[in-house]
């Protein structure tokens, strides 16, 4: 079995079987990562282009290493966001890349829909590595992988996603992916960072952290963009941290074995206290490691891996 689609644009398009396939494939990829010699010939002769319009060390590096371990030729193109408005259009960039016959283009872009835009115009597989506040499916898949690895299952698990939900592609992707896998999702944050109508996505909504984290199996903290303060969405970092920062004290309201996740990079001491980030239930570094395995799985599956010929 392979993926039924050319591109990976968002979690909403994946079936639960496809998500399971990706996670299962990632498990076998994780085994490769732990070998002494990590290179396997799976994608030899395939070309992967990382097209990044936003700086992102971890996602770009993760895709780059994943591609290289699978023996693909990986090319990185970093374009500053400012060139989006004054430089070559995304369409022309895409068509230029297309003329070089890449097999997979991994795109990170500040505009929601940028990956969809490329996918409809290019023959290459497009993997969305984050488009504005829209989707970040590889992050959601690695989060699911990490939870499944730790707990052994996904169905019936309860998660609280905490922070700036409105501007978070991680939150959007995770809500859809988790619900697809039978998990219950809560969101919590300042009212100004909870998008209107969010409850219509089938999530429970909280503006109180203690109440939000009670009874959940996983707490997923989101990174706070400090510039939101200037935008008037919260009064000060101090107050945000006091109301929504995850501290050891606040964790007392949660289950004793609750798992802590964060997509990184962390603002230590703001959304998450250092002792919580480094504590025994923190999965933050597992997430990074699993990101590699999941991205190897995605590159493999998008390049046609798993397809059985008749």
């Amino acid at each position: 079995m392979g993926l039924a689609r050319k591109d990976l644009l968002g979690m909403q398009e994946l079936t639960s079987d496809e998500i399971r396939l990706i996670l299962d494939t990632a498990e076998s990829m994780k085994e490769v990562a732990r070998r002494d010699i990590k290179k396997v010939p799976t994608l030899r002769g395939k070309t992967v282009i990382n097209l990044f319009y936003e700086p992102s060390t971890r996602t770009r590096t993760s895709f780059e290493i994943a591609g290289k371990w699978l023996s693909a030729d990986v090319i990185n193109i970093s374009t500053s966001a400012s060139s989006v408005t004054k430089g070559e259009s995304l369409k022309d960039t895409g068509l230029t890349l297309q003329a070089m016959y890449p097999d997979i283009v991994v795109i990170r872009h500040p505009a929601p829909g940028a990956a969809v835009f490329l996918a409809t115009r290019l023959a290459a597989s497009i993997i969305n590595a984050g488009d504005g506040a829209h989707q970040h499916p590889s992050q959601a898949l690695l989060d699911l992988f990490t939870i499944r690895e730790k707990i052994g299952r996904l169905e019936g698990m309860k998660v609280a996603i905490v922070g700036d939900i409105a501007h978070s592609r991680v939150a959007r992707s995770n809500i859809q992916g988790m619900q697809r896998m039978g998990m219950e999702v809560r969101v919590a944050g300042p009212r100004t960072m909870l998008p209107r109508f969010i409850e219509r996505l089938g999530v429970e909504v909280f503006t109180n952290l203690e109440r939000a984290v009670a009874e959940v199996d996983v707490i997923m903290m989101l990174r706070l963009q400090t510039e939101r303060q200037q935008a008037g969405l919260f009064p000060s970092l101090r107050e945000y941290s006091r109301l929504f920062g995850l501290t050891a004290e606040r964790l007392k309201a949660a289950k004793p074995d609750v798992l802590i996740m964060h997509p990184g990079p962390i603002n230590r001491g703001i959304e998450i206290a250092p002792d919580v980030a480094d504590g025994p239930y923190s999965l933050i570094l597992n997430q990074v490691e699993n990101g590699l395995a999941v991205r190897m799985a995605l590159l493999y599956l998008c390049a046609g891996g798993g397809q059985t010929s008749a």
Partner: protein
Amino acid sequence: MRILIRGGRVIDPAAGLDDLLDLFIEDGKIVRIDKNTGGGRREAGGADTKEPRTGKEAKASRNAESALGVDRVMDATGLVICPGLIDMHVHLRQPGREDKETIASGTMAAARGGFTAVCCMPNTDPVNDTRSVAKFILDTAKREGAVQVYPVGAITKGLKGEELAEIGELFEAGCVAISDDGRPVMNAELMRRAMEYATMFDLPTIQHSEDLHLSGKGVVHEGLVSTELGLRGIPSVSEAVLVARDLLLAESTGARLHIAHVSAAESVRLIREAKARGVRVSCEVTPHHLTLTEDAVRDFDANAKMNPPLRSEADRQALIEGLQDGTIDVIATDHAPHTVQEKEREFDLAPNGVIGLETALAVILTTLVAPGILSLPQAIAKLTSEPARILKLSKERIAEGADADLTIFDLHREWIVDPTTFASKSRNTPFAGRRLTGATVATLVGGKVVWEA
């Protein structure tokens, strides 16, 4: 040139006219209106069918035509004839962005859509904030335009919202209203003064109602779709807050306020209440806000990106109610041409606006008239007598002695929207590929057939 238009169903809501009539046109005027005896028969539901004439009748008719010295007979059997449609909100882009549209191409698009007159907004380059720009538009329209063009002058110099434009001079030059369309006048004091000043000329002040702080960097309606797609939202109160402010200003100044492209349920409610207490306010709605919702942006197609944005189904229903109960006076297209390359971009970066001149009538007939939401005369009034009343144009009547500005259309002709065939230079329509019922057959301006299918 003498033209006889024979056998059509003539509807003029302003004159209370809805009958099978023959219109005789001479020297640009309607000179005679006769009861049609040519055998057109009205079916229940308004459709007309042509019955065979007897040879005797046909001969008598031909004799009558030749006695009148008619140069051309247009057979309108089975068709509707109404006063020429007026679009009080278009962007012709000339001067400044002739790659998107020109007065020639935009007015030809208008003619194809059945419009005999359009009002062009002042956000050209240079801005229509002086007599010379207004004169340029009028001169070019006279020379190259297919239909009548009425310029709207700016409220503030350069549309900057800082100083009043020379409104008196714009009025003298031929501007029929003032507006900073595309931008709101955010400064309430300046808006108050603009309205007061405009009362000297009884010019309507047309406001693009939007609180720029509330809209922020929004690109779509703030709703379920923006939440799902992660696109920044423009809340409906962004419009309603400014509508509320301007209604109070209109009430206190006694000025005539016209609110452009109303999109939100809250705005409709506020305008309804203001009208009930006698505020001199009118407003318009676009065909796309009446027929599409926020769902149209789900695939990030920038051809559904506009300001105000397509809103929720509840808003759309409120607009329809407003149209039915008379709260909303006019349907106008906000025809906003943009080049293909400008629209074929990331959604965030594409410009706002869609074209509408060549689809408006058919969209209205298909989505409002056919399902019985508006009667045909009601719909025609929103496109003819109502804009004429607001702008004080004497262009709405089918009467002996009136200018022969006429639209002839077929209620039943089906077609599929193919923007590549448009007369407009631009293609940015959200209706591409839609099957519509109802099509313009001919457009006459001053007795001249300026477009014919």
